[in-house]
């Protein structure tokens, strides 16, 4: 399976629609401190179903919606879409291309879409169940995590091993 495209709109520091295309191999993202690189990582975590706002540095989920800056007003909704190419036919759908979308409104309401059709979070989680796709602890490695796995507190390490087993 391959990431094909990521669309971020109203999420954290991206008030307007921004589109990243992905290909096989290595995509590198660069830019100055605070410009939004880790926010892109957060948007991928989020669209894959992350339920803990703390994992995306927010106190609560509403922190993820663009809250204003420069002369831009806060947005009413955050929306992230991830389009995947099902190259090995591992997904239990007849599509070769699948788009998952997640929305969060100021009211606190959430929406999930599969190929632009409303669905439940559960449907998305079931779709990816045996594919290894998900915001697993070891698919996303951030700088602070490298120290955690070596830490004297061995339970973190233990749980990573158990997840892989």
């Amino acid at each position, binding site marked *: *399976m*391959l*990431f094909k495209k990521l669309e971020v709109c109203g999420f*954290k*520091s*991206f008030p*307007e629609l*921004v*589109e*990243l*295309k*992905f*290909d*096989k*191999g*290595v*995509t*590198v*993202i*660069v*830019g*100055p401190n605070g*410009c*939004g*690189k*880790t*926010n*892109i*990582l957060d948007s*991928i975590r989020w669209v894959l179903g992350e339920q803990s706002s703390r994992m995306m540095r927010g106190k609560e989920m509403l922190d993820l919606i663009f809250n*204003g*800056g*420069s002369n*831009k007003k806060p947005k009413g909704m955050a929306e992230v879409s991830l389009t995947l190419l099902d190259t090995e036919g591992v997904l239990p759908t007849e599509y070769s291309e699948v788009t998952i979308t997640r929305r969060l409104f100021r009211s606190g309401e959430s929406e999930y879409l599969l190929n632009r059709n409303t669905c439940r979070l559960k449907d998305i989680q079931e779709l990816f169940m045996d*594919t*290894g*796709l*998900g915001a*697993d602890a*070891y*698919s*996303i*490695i*951030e*700088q602070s*995590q*490298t*120290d955690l*796995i*070596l830490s*004297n507190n*061995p339970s973190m*390490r*233990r749980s*990573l*091993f*158990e*997840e*892989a*087993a």
Partner: protein
Amino acid sequence: SIERFRATFDKIRENFAQVFAKFFKGGRADIVLTENDILESNIEIIAQPPGKKPESIQLLSGGERALTAIGLLLSIFMVKPSPFLILDEVDAPLDDPNVRRFTEVIREFAKNTQFIVITHNKRTMEMADCLYGVTMEEPGVSKLVSVNFKKEERTPDPIIVKDG
């Protein structure tokens, strides 16, 4: 189950020895179950860079610890690979020779895994098949500014990237 954990553990151990040797151009590394109760035991890490005495990892330097940790996380990943792997500035504590070895290992993994790598490091940028630059000309508003694809335009933008 105990057998499955044991099998997974042994595979991770094997991977770890290999990846560590690639990162450190030698040396030895191991993971050990400290107690007999496999399902409850803690996991101890032994890392010995080439030419140095085997020591507890807490005596290792910042850069050595980072490489060891990346090596262990990759070793776990290999056992249950996901289609993608995202790395956020894990190369920050590494010196040039270690960054080079790090990128060589990533390129090897990239044959079967899609990578998204966030970095400030020029050497790491050079291994990109595809490069995105993000800026904030308007404070608080992120913008995607440059997209460079495989081998056509591989010169990094000197304004965006840190020089050292």
